[in-house]
């Protein structure tokens, strides 16, 4: 089995690599948590690319049921076909619609299965998938058939902590918490996304970015995806590093802050800080 070591567009820290490789080697699901915007969902895409597998994604919504991942019985179509006298109606298998899990089980080569934002669903959702993820098989009642995984897929599950996940479920997974990248890692992430960027600009931008994250009382701290967007904007607008460097306290809010501060109250907070700063300077 190939090992995952990050890709040319994704920087995987050593601890993340080990977590992914453990999940691959032991064929257990990997549960990924972390601050929003630290690349949880992207991870599955990059793992699939890194070890050259197909990716099947199952996005969970508040209305998603575990059964939908296995299969659904389209009773309405069958009823309609019955009324129209369609021949297909005699075989119930014609109305069994496979779900994402089924799709992953039937794949010729073990794919990567992403179960995205599992915490969005009902609290019972993970419990309903215990056996399926453990044994990688399930039973179709309508056709009395057991679907077994031909190859155990690599399952990556993401969660945003909106709901507590049951212990029995957690016990079956490897767990990794993506920490917010430190400056050094962030530098590497930016290098990967914007190769050949002026070192000066990155340096100034990151200084401002980490300053913002440290401001007390922020409702929503900007994260990796935001800083990448912001740098892209800085490039498009062709803002020079000098503009970023003029740390005029009166202009505490960085240019194009819309990419970093997504909350009206946070912008207010910064305006207020800038105001206080001005006053302090005026007084002294």
């Amino acid at each position, binding site marked *: 089995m190939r090992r995952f070591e990050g890709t040319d567009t994704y920087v995987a820290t050593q601890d993340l690599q*080990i977590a992914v490789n*453990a999940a691959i080697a032991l064929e257990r699901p990997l549960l990924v948590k972390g601050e929003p915007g630290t690349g949880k969902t992207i991870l599955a895409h990059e793992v699939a690319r890194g070890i050259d597998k197909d990716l099947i994604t199952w996005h969970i919504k508040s209305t998603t049921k575990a059964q939908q991942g296995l299969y659904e019985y389209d009773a309405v179509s069958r009823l309609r076909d019955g009324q129209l006298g369609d021949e297909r109606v005699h075989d119930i298998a014609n109305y069994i619609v496979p779900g994402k899990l089924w799709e992953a089980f039937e794949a010729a080569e073990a794919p990567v299965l992403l179960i995205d934002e599992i915490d969005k669903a009902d609290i019972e959702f993970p419990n309903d998938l215990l056996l399926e993820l453990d044994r990688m098989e399930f039973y179709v009642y309508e056709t009395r058939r057991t679907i077994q995984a031909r190859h155990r897929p690599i399952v990556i599950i993401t969660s945003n902590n909106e709901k507590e996940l049951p212990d029995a479920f957690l016990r*079956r997974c490897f767990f990794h918490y993506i920490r917010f990248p430190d400056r050094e890692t962030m530098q590497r992430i930016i290098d990967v996304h914007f190769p050949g960027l002026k070192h000066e600009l990155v340096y100034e931008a990151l200084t401002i970015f980490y300053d913002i994250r440290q401001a007390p009382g922020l409702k929503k701290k900007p994260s990796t995806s935001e800083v990448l967007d912001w740098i892209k904007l800085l490039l498009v607008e062709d803002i020079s590093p000098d503009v970023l460097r003029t740390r005029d306290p009166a202009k505490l809010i960085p240019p194009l802050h819309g990419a970093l501060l997504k909350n009206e109250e946070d912008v207010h907070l910064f305006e207020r800080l800038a105001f206080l700063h001005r006053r302090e300077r005026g007084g002294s």
Partner: protein
Amino acid sequence: MFFSFFAELREAKVPVSLREYLTLIEAMQKRVAAFDIEEFYFLARTALVKDERHLDRFDRVFGHCFNGIETPGDPKTALPEEWLRKIAERFLTEEEKRQIEALGGWEKLMETLRRRLAEHRSRHQGGSKWSGTAGTSPFGAHGYNPEAVRIGQQEGSNRSAVKVWDRREFRNLDDTVELGTRNIKLALRRLRQFAREGAADELDLGGTVKSTAHNAGWLDLKLVPERHNAVKLLLFLDVGGSMEDHVRVCEELFSAARSEFKQLIHFYFHNCVYDSVWRDSRRRRVEQVPVIEIIRTYDRSYRIVLVGDASVSPYEIEKEGGSVERWNDEPGEVWLRRLFEAYPRAVWLNPVPEKYWTGTVSIGMIRRISEDRMFPLTLDGLDRAIARLKRRG
């Protein structure tokens, strides 16, 4: 081999079970991690810890059990510089160091150290690098503080300079506070109540079958509205003074559980509710909402939760003009009664522990006004409050 580590984890209240332990051993057998203490740490972490709250505890236990274990390096460089420097901290007094410095500088010092280390080694026969409790390791588990050892490591730029688990990066994720966000969320979840409202867009299979049968086998589709959460909540938070800390917590808690409610609206007051409250605690002078308007706008199906310590001067409740903010024509008691009358399903949550309630006059008054619907802001209190909110009337 790792069983004592496993036992210590359980003792430190990291919920690991035999299953996780076996998983770790299986992963070791499959050579997921190379023979490297850092890789082993990452592997053990991903296999044994299932919640970021426990990461810090795990780091501490790991440090305790495994500090002193070094990745066996190249056997030729038997005594890495780093070690020697650490041992210098351990074996030499300041005076000795000065003496050696005076004698021949660092080179000489190294020599001495090498000699001393050799002696030390022979005394602890069998004390290998992997023992972790004593032996040659400069750390050892004899209560030698690794913090102190780090002196002189600044220039060590390789990643093993400071152990990953010693950095304690997950410290702020451990929330063993009495009332964690999660606890509250689980408690508030009990408030969920499903109702079918809105457009009929979900197929009612049972109904369809039944009416199709009635229809002599011709399909007659029946639709019902989707089930969704029907709980609507008005939250009144006391701001200012002693309540500031609690309010921030409450605000976060209720916002975190926002998805559990159909509607959640915040209001703020100071000490007691009077003729108006405000929507934004920072702009209280500007954006005031008359309580009468709230009662008119939101009907009786809303539930209200007031959060406050109710520890005020009795005047602030029973007298006109008692408000600390500005003049009020009617006493707070009148406004509280109006609120409780308008919303039959209302509770008051009090962060003050229940046992002190009898000691404060104003708490007793508000309890009377609320007809004993005051509950402490603990998990148990929250449970009781929610049971009360679920009751009709």
